[in-house]
Each structure stands twice: as structure tokens, then as C-alpha cells.
């Protein structure tokens, strides 16, 4: 019978051509890869991007260094595929991220006024992220929406560590300018 199979074992077996083992990895990482593709701008092509990424990842498994986490390695391929589709298309406006209208039942307790204000603030923040320059937006997506570390972000976006740090700082500064009243001048100066 099938026992618990961890990533390392699945990868080792997939390298040997075991498609069952690879299917475990595909099932395990599809949602995460799809979320990354969508948030990085693949839009309605996210499923295609993820499918392509999994096929390419399998072909390149021999280059995967054993013992490293699989997710950032896979997400780098996903990010690359996403770039390919968004380069061949120029419909950035249609890809703006958004928050679905709040469901009252799932909002944390704290009073309707607080909820409304918090919701408004979040919607504002999303709009601000949508308005960031491309690279700063990418770094925000990786660091905060995909919960990747600085090192993982560098790997996924194929940037040097320093660029991840400086672009993150610039993005945060810009967002702060948009969020904190009286700091707007920072944005125009930036």
C-alpha cells in the first residue's frame, strides 16, 4: 500500500521516471503554483502556465539539487512561464488584483463600522499594489502574497538578493506614502 511520501522521496522517484511519484508532487503543488501564476499576472492563462511549468519541471528534474525545498524551484519555472505569456500579451489592466466583496459572516468580530473601515483600507491597499511599477509589484506578490522569504523570492524571480531587498524597501515606502496621511509627498519625490 502507498505510504506517506515526502517531497524528497517523490522527487527521487520521479527522477527515475516514476510518474506516480511525480503526480503526487503535481497534486501537492498545483494550488500553490496556480496562485503564484495568477498573482504574478498570468490571469486566465494560469492553468496553462502551471501545466507547462510542471511538464518543464519534470524534464529538468535532473538539475534539481537534492535536499532543497521543491516549492521555490518550481515557482521559478512558474514565474518564468508567466513572464512568457504576459510578454506575448499586453493586457495588464485586465489583470488587476482584487478582493472579493466581503462576506459579513466571515469577517472577524469588532463591529460593523470597524469592518467597513478595514475593508475599505484593504481595498485601497490592493489598488495601491496594482499601481506599483512592475518589478515592485512582483516583489510584493512574492514576499507578502505568496509568503516567500527574501532568499526564496530571489530564487523565484531570478534576481540578486540585493535587488529583492531594495525593491521591497522601495515598494513599502511607496505604499506607506499612499496609506499614511501626510506622507503623500514621499510618493511624488520617489
Amino acid at each position, binding site marked *: 500500500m502507498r505510504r506517506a511520501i515526502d517531497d524528497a522521496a517523490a522527487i527521487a522517484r520521479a527522477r*527515475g521516471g516514476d*510518474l506516480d511519484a511525480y503526480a503526487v508532487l503535481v497534486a501537492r503543488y498545483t494550488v500553490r503554483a496556480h496562485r503564484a501564476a495568477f498573482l504574478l499576472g498570468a490571469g486566465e492563462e494560469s492553468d496553462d502556465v502551471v501545466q507547462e511549468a510542471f511538464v518543464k519541471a519534470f524534464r529538468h528534474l535532473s538539475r534539481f539539487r537534492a535536499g532543497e525545498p521543491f516549492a521555490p524551484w518550481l515557482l521559478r519555472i512558474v514565474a518564468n512561464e508567466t513572464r512568457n505569456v504576459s510578454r506575448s500579451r499586453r493586457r495588464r489592466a485586465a489583470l488587476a488584483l482584487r478582493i472579493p466583496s466581503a462576506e459579513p459572516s466571515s469577517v472577524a468580530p469588532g463591529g460593523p463600522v470597524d469592518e467597513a473601515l478595514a475593508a475599505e483600507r484593504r481595498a485601497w491597499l*490592493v489598488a495601491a499594489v496594482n499601481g506599483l511599477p512592475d518589478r515592485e509589484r512582483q516583489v510584493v506578490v512574492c*514576499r507578502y502574497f505568496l509568503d516567500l522569504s527574501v532568499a526564496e523570492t530571489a530564487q523565484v524571480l531570478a534576481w540578486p538578493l540585493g535587488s529583492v531587498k531594495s525593491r521591497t524597501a522601495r515598494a513599502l515606502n511607496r505604499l506607506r506614502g499612499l496609506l499614511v496621511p501626510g506622507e503623500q509627498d514621499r510618493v511624488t519625490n520617489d
Partner: protein
Amino acid sequence: MTDRAGWQDAVESELRAVGRELAVPPASDLTATVRRRLADEAAGRRPTPGPGGGVFRRRLGWRAAVVVVAAMLALLIATPQGRAVIVHVFRFAGVELRQGPGPANSPTRAALPGERQTSLEQARHRVSFPILVPAALGRPGDVVVSDGGRVVSLIYRRTPHGLIRIDEFAGHLDQAYFEKFVQLSDVTRVEVNGTKGLWIKGPHDLVYITRNGTPAVASARLTTGNTLIWATRQVALRLEGNLGKAAALAVARSAR
């Protein structure tokens, strides 16, 4: 001059909160498609674009063919309808269901990584998702935060049904939190407050999956009673205890 780290933390935590709420369309299940493409490729049924394709095909050809046959047999055995490769990997709200026995149970008391007993109020500060408490059960006897705030567990020791445990986690996000080894015939779909849930009858092997996708050996255990899994937009919950389906659903519906 304001504290630089202070405002950065504030913006960062707001961004994280926003990230949890972003609308992301559901991902299609690609397991079968990817598998078919790779099997075709390896068997040389189609010219493969992409680097190294040809070499890859020659090297793996016969082995992959054997794998394909074996996989088809496995499929036929596993699913009379021959419908899906996903049958042995079924994902719901951060919980992965598999058929068959799980890993060896922990020889000592099974525990999640980094368990820390705390109060409900403190727990609300330590985890990044809203903690839901079922009004039907009232305040939990014990609250345990695990794995650096990735999971919170509410423990009720004295209920009319005996011990009840509720684990909560941000299950709508990417990877798995728990892996369960079940007979699919023991699993039924249910509805909790208008959203889908799963009811698992009887004990089964359970193991916690860490952030790296590795099962935490020390967490492997056999569950008690029955289990209900359901989710709201921000949090996934698994309720475990010796209570029937109707009682479990009543508890779940009262969670807020």
C-alpha cells in the same frame, strides 16, 4: 521621526492580510493532464519541444512504457470508473486524503511541532487568521498554538460527547497542513453554512505536514471518533471527537 521598523512591520502585516483575501480563481486539477503529457513524451508518441527532449525520450523510453502500463493497471484497480488519478490524492481545505495506511504512529504522545499552550486572547495575536470558536461548545478548556502560529487547536475536555479537538489553520492557502489516510468509502460530502465540508467516519491515520511539505513524524497518530473538515473564506477547521454527524454539524454551524 517615526520608528522605521515599526511602520514597515505595519505595512507588511497589512499586505499579508490583504494577500489572504485576494480573489484567486480555483485551480484546475492538472494531475491527469500533466501525467498523460509526460507519459506520451516518454513513450515517444509525440515530438517533444523543449531542451533535452530527444535524449530524455531515448533514455527513459522503455522504462516509462512500463510505468504507463503499471499506472493504467493501478488506475483500473483503484477506480472502476477509470476516472481519475487523483483518487489517492484528494485535497480539501489544506487537508490531503489518501487511501491506505499512514506512516507509523509516533511512539510517544503525538504532538504538532512547537506546541505552546496559551490563552484564547493570546492565541488571537499569535496566528495570522481569525480564530473561530463554536458557540455550541463555549470557551475551550485548552488552547494550543503550534508551528510558529501556523495552527491553533482548541481542546474541549468535558463535553456531552467527551473530548473534542478542533484544529484551525489558513487552509485556503497553497500547501497541505494535514495528511489523512482513509478509506474513501468512509468519506462523505456535507454542507456547513452553505459551503462544502467532508465528514470522515471512524478513526484514521493522521500526520501533520510542515511548511516544507514534509510529514512531521512525531505528529503521526490515529484519530479518535469521527472527523469533520470544513472551511470559511479565511480559515479551515477540522473537528475530531466521539460525536455523530448531526452533532458535529451543529457545532460547526455555531462557529464564529
